């Protein structure tokens, strides 16, 4: 990353900045975009194989890699203040809390829930 910051830094000096703007170098933007497209193709490709339960986790993993690229580079998080990083990442802790408890509970009481529409004969054991 040292070359990156150097490149950004030199541009910034030549423009006489006050020190709080970090223009991203063009090559970095294009590289990130290319990586995102490749990952999209990869996720479409992997969906063609029946991987069972693994599939959703794999596609979520690829999506998370893509999201990380967008957050780090397009959203400039690598140049951002630590507070902003904590604020944004903190939101995911609360999302996890919310989803975790609700899912845990929904699976806990699912056996006592009666379906409203009677299941067809073929699926009843």
């Amino acid at each position, binding site marked *: 990353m040292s070359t990156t910051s150097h490149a950004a830094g030199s541009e910034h000096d030549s423009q006489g900045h006050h020190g709080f703007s970090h223009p991203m170098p063009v090559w970095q933007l294009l590289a990130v975009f290319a990586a995102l497209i490749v990952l999209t193709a990869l996720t479409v490709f992997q969906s063609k194989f029946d991987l069972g339960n693994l599939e959703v986790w794999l596609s979520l993993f690829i999506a998370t890699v893509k999201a990380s690229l967008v957050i780090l580079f397009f959203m400039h998080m690598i140049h951002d203040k630590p*507070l902003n990083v904590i604020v944004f990442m903190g*939101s995911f802790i609360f999302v996890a*809390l*919310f989803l975790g408890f609700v899912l845990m509970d929904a*699976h*806990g*009481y699912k056996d006592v*829930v009666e379906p*409203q*529409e009677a299941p067809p004969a073929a699926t009843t054991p």
Partner: protein
Amino acid sequence: MSVVAKNAEASHAADAHEGDYLTHSRGFLSWALTLDHKRIGIMYLIGVMTSFLVGGILALMIRAELLTPTQLFLTNKQFNQVFTLHGAIMVFLFIIPSVPAALGNFLVPLMLGAKDVAFPRLNLCSFYLWVVGLIFFIACLLITGLDTGWTFYTPYSTTTEGPVAWATMGAFILGFSSIFTGLNFIVTINTMRPPGMTWFKMPLFLWATYSTAIIQVLATPVLGITLLLLTAERLFQIGIFDPRWNGDPVAFQHFFWFYSHPAVYIMILPAMGIISELMSVHSHKTIFGYTLIAYSSVAIALFGFLVWGHHMFTSGMADVTTIVFSALTFSVSIPSAIKVFNWLATMYKGTVQLTTPMCYALNFLFLFTIGGLTGLFLGALSADRHLHDTYFVVAHFHYVMMGGTLVAFVGGIFHWWPKMVGKMYNELWGQISCLFVFIGFNLTFLPQFVMGTRGMPRRYARYLPEFQDLHIMSSTGAFILGFGLFIALGVLIHSLMRGRKAPRNPWGGATLEWHCSSPPPHYNFASAPTVNEPYDYTPLAYHDEEHGWEYHQPNVRPTPSQSHPVIAKS
């Protein structure tokens, strides 16, 4: 901050002749389009007090109807509508914006030593969103027929007649108003502290507001999406919460309480912040355990996210979830108890003056402690099976919300009233109003604990005759309470017209808002104030001729610091 430090420039003491924020400019538009946080705070204050009046009248209607076990003047349907609107108006239009939006807007920049909040236009936008939300609720009031309770539980709310979609959209919009206020405060406190204002030199009210703002930003969006889905459910029957389509009503309750339990702390935390100020200033003694109170505010905000399930013990949650939530619920009582002990220790060996704000603060301490402790009964699974949806719950949350938040809010208004309007009020009548509130409140809600344990269910228009004595006690208390609050309102209105001019510092407070004149100038501080210890009262002395407190060594009085460029309007 190095840039700031370099801006040494002579002070333009121009605000001396431009008048205070109230007289700075005149005309309707100068208020309606103001970006001044103090004026927005005053507009919120008028708004929330009006909402409280409406919600209060509805409450008195409920209590009047319950004087007899049979119908007095409300049909069953009307009774359901009255308690629904009472709850919805009190929660969404009054308590949530009361302390943060009204007092918070006025005080946060002043206490911080900033010129304004970070985003003044967003602040005004947030006020108008509140007004739009209010219009939706007025529509509900006019259409009539909203009878879901303020919680909008499905599947009843998706099948009942009445303007449910209006109410949910109103609450949705009010949610955004609340989010923007919270966002503004977080950014203000993080980025606009003047030099010297470190985190641990901030008044505790700011810590409380900051913690509240965290909840507002994190929890309110979930309410937003819940109400949006509920509106879609009403309009298109999308079925996510509707068992007819295999939707899950318990999921609705999870979604709803993920916001609404933290919202309870949006209601009480700023009130605790007020009490921290009041206790210390009116005891003329440094707050006991500053750091603990500060951290406990943040702890309450974070613990508040872990306990929402205790509203749903009897809703059909899985057994294991109820046990987890019950255990977590007890944890949240620890930071609350820390605060109460610290307030008591603050008064110990202090010079307690029973001024009106202090009377209300003591009132808070008594009522909030009862409210908090009865919450522990409800957090216990076995007791909750019995007490759920009875008057015990009603009494519990009124002790916390009304005995806690409302009483602290009124105390806060009395405390900062001289600063807001520049007028003093009649102390004796203020104290009398507090006495009426205290007696009326306990007479209203103590019998409800008894009724609850004996099985009187909440939200019922008719009841068994054996409860009538207790209901009559409760209703009598409600009217005494209402009378006490009317006296308080009268005291404030009287002070506006006849009150003597308020000194800069009538109580001897050391936080920054007491350093500017009463009422404050348009830009708060002619120059950034020197930040001193917020609860150090030693350099203050009472001046008889001014009826207020002044720094007895002139050089300790905050001098213009060499830091900020001075802003003045020419």
